């Protein structure tokens, strides 16, 4: 064997992960089609609300991507990523709400005989925002709400720091597997319960509302804003996909997959397992938060129920149904399940009449989802993305029946070649 065979020249990463190019192509095409069909700049076949639904779905795909990276590739079943998603939404929502209320308050105070002082404006905004929870002063966590750049920084920093601290505590004490899942779920529950209080400073269970009205952009129709947000979501998803595929296709990716498959061995090989896990956990938390910051201006309202543990469980459901350990699988799963869910729960699905009993999908959809989730877990652990494997397996060499699923999987032959 020559040196070349042991250390072949590294291919550009796009070539190492061809699925990325395909995905970006499809995403671009989809964005183009939606833009043409939407009301904002196109022919108006798709309603504004559906454009928003599609934009939100892209954000959900992005958080699913993060979930896939942390769970499908690194083996950490985090039940807290929707909490990071929500924190991102809260961070951007605080600025949106502050800035919009500031405009309203300033314009109403402009009619007063004296020009308003900063304190008067601030009091006016505070009583507008916190009237519902019976407070009229800004809690300390709103200190930076007036500044768009600072709140944008908070979108990244707050979830990032939370994930860093939580992950450091959890990984250094070697909490793994189901224990870690339960611990992340507890973190999510604690956060949701905290936000549910009226004196949390974030309006308790009222949450933040009116986020779809961008401050200072009232003259621009929602149809335009929705398509712009759709583009932004598509761009963010595309970038996140590129970065994630870059992370997983190099040596770093091999290490995190190795951690997933056998943590102890990787540790004995001299890798700092905790550092790798901490990086992935924090990195994906930030992706989730950015997705949340794009999602909630389109949704218009955020409240603590969005952060409740069940949301993170659904996130795991999407990724599992889409197929773990494949970035496009997570995206497919999130898009498929969340759009299907919108279709079923929106009352558009036809009821099934069984004679004595009529299945109304609004009531029975969740049951169907639960059962299909169980079925996917047991019978098709590779999810929808597994269908693509069927095609590629036809062309790839025989592995003598060795399963390459997320748990039993070892180093892939293609990876060994690289």
């Amino acid at each position, binding site marked *: 064997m020559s040196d070349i065979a042991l250390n072949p020249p590294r291919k550009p990463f796009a070539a190492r992960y061809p699925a990325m190019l395909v995905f970006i192509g499809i995403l671009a095409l989809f964005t183009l089609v939606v833009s043409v069909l939407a009301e904002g700049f196109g022919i108006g076949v798709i309603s504004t609300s559906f454009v928003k639904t599609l934009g939100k779905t892209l954000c959900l795909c992005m958080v699913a991507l993060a979930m896939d990276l942390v769970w499908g590739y690194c083996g950490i079943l985090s039940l807290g990523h929707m909490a990071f998603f929500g924190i991102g939404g809260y961070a951007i929502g605080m600025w949106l709400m502050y800035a919009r209320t500031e405009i309203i308050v300033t314009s109403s105070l402009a009619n007063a005989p004296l020009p308003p002082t900063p304190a008067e404006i601030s009091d006016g905004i505070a009583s507008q925002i916190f009237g519902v929870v019976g407070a009229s002063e800004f809690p300390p966590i709103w200190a930076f709400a007036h500044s768009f750049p600072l709140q944008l920084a908070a979108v990244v920093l707050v979830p990032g720091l939370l994930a860093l601290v939580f992950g450091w505590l*959890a990984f250094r004490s070697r909490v793994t597997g189901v224990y870690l899942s339960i611990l992340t779920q507890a973190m999510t529950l*604690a956060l949701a319960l905290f936000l549910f209080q009226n004196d949390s400073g974030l309006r308790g269970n009222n949450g933040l509302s009116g986020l779809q009205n961008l401050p200072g952009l009232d003259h621009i129709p929602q149809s335009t804003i929705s398509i712009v947000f759709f583009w932004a979501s598509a761009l963010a998803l595309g970038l996140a996909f590129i970065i994630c595929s870059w992370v997983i296709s190099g040596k770093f990716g091999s290490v995190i997959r190795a951690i997933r498959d056998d943590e102890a061995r990787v540790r004995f090989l001299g890798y700092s397992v905790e550092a790798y896990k901490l990086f992935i956990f924090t990195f994906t938390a930030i992706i989730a938060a950015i997705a949340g910051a794009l999602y909630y201006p389109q949704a218009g309202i955020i409240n603590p129920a969005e952060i409740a543990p069940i949301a993170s469980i659904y996130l795991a459901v999407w990724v599992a149904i889409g197929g773990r350990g494949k970035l496009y699988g997570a995206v497919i799963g999130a898009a498929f399940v969340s759009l299907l869910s919108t279709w079923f729960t929106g009352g558009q699905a036809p009821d099934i009449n069984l004679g004595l009993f009529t299945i109304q999908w609004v009531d029975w959809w969740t049951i169907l989802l639960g059962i299909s989730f169980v079925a996917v877990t047991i019978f098709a652990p590779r999810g929808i993305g597994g269908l693509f494997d069927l095609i590629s397996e036809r062309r790839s060499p025989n592995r003598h029946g060795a399963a390459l699923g997320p748990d039993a999987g070892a180093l892939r032959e293609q990876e060994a070649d690289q």
Partner: protein
Amino acid sequence: MLTLCRLMVACMALCLHALTATAQTTDTPIQLLLQEHAEVLKKSSRKTIGPAIDALANSGLEDAQLVLERWQTKELWVNKDSGLFVFAEKKDSKTLALFDVAGGVAIGEAPKKAFKQLKPNSGIRGLIGAALVQFQLNSPDAETRATALTAIERDAEVSHLLALRGAIDSETDATLKTRKQRLERLLTIRFGQDDAERIAAIQSFAGDLGVDVRAALNPLVATTTDAAKTAPEGAMPVDLPPADAYALLVAEDLAPALVSHDTIRETLVANIDGTQIAGVQLASLNTDAARLAAYNTLADQGAAQPAVTEADIAATLKQFQFFQTYTNAPIAVAIAAQDALDAIETSVALNQTADLALDAISLASIYFLAAIGLAITFGVMGVINMAHGEFIMMGAYTGYVVQLIVPDYTLSIIVAIPAAFIVTFAAGVAMERLVIRWLYHRPLETLLATFGVSIALQQLAKNIFGTQARPLTAPGWLDGSWIINDVVSISYIRIAIFVLALLFLGLFLFVMNRTRLGLEVRAVTQNPRMASSMGINPDRINMLTFGFGSGIAGIAGVAIGLYAKVTSEMGTDYIVQSFMTVVVGGVGNIWGTLLGATMVGSLQKGIEWLNPSNSLAAQTYMILFIIFFIQFRPRGIIALKGRAAEA
């Protein structure tokens, strides 16, 4: 003709009058007493009536009580001619039925116009009522005496004190006597004449937990804060924050009021002169400093009251001394009351700790009940069952359905407990056969699959039973609380849950350590292959164990449903806490689960006590604490050692 008729009626009235006059005895002691105070009684004035009521009340006459009662209900009349007092009831619009004031004997009827009704106003009726209390306190009927005491406890007056003192010695019932004595001391605290007896009464209550004692003492220690150039003798000086001190001076008109932002704005608005105020451009008045400057200019021109500056405040405050005085009691009494309250406070704090401990134990038993099933499936089998909460919910709904069929609450609970066990046992076995069996050794996927089951079961319950909460009513004998004293009490349901938790601990220990099933379960847990080579069927054991754990969850559901509402989402309220309990306690050890439940329960109660307004915050902090706890004992309080730990 008409005249004749009138004459006839007049004659008859006269005859009747003569009749009543002869029938009524005029020289009974009570009638004489009434005659003695006739003027005052007829005048019926709140100010002068006192002596008459006292005379009646203290006369020692048997009839006095009756007279007072009838007087109070406006049934005491006086004959306009003879001035004699009678009881009368209106028969119709013109006729009265008369009764003697002595003994209330009927003495015939008379036309109404010959009599005048005494109409005591509400003030006088109050005085009469107070006088009557004495009679009620001495009434031969124990129930009347108890009612009178309750009335005094609710709304005491000065006059009650004497009446009560007079009624203690004659009391025969021991319980009532104690109550009377206690009430007498309480009233002495409030109404006692001289300080010494009040202080003595106060000191007699040292350490007493009664709410009534604190209610009597608290007003005595009320203080008012005051300011003067020189403090009077004996006043307690206080240090006030400058803002409060100045506000006090303003309230007492000792200093000019601060000029608020609002006043400044209003004054400025009132003095707008075109586009400027006092020579300052309007547009530049967008800061508080600029506004104050403009205001000061106005003040200099005499158009406004000058603003008070910080220096003014400091100078004014220096001139005054601030002190507190007791408002409602002489200082000696107030100090005694304060001491007594301090002593009571300590005692209350101790008892509150005991109460808190009871609360914590009962919460711990609820968590233990919720977690014990999980301790079996997770701890013994290593299977994560996220649908555990839904088994709890299923058990509670089973109880609800049983109550629909069996209306008797006691019987229905007795039926519901085994029914819930059977239903959830079956559900558990079905789930093990259909789902979990395929996923052994893939714990994360078990977690996910059971999530799916959990979501589906929750929605199924919602579809069947609706979203509103369903009641699971406890039998009557579980209503109410065991009250130890005014501070410490615990409801019977919580005691029952505690007992149930103990029973389950016993059951678990018995099954695991003393039965064949337990032996086989332990064998399969430790080494399934070895166990199966010894003739144990691991499949069957896993199925039964899982069913057993689920069945216990069902029974826990009945217990939890008794004190909380049954909803389709009740499982989610317990699942995280249950897992916390098992994880904190240490997996695979029932004593660990017990410790974990105790810790989680006491923690939650303890945090709630620190921040009583907010149980959400308590849960938040508890979870944070547990996350930190896991840092130090990642394998729980009682960690398995050796090979079993890695299994």
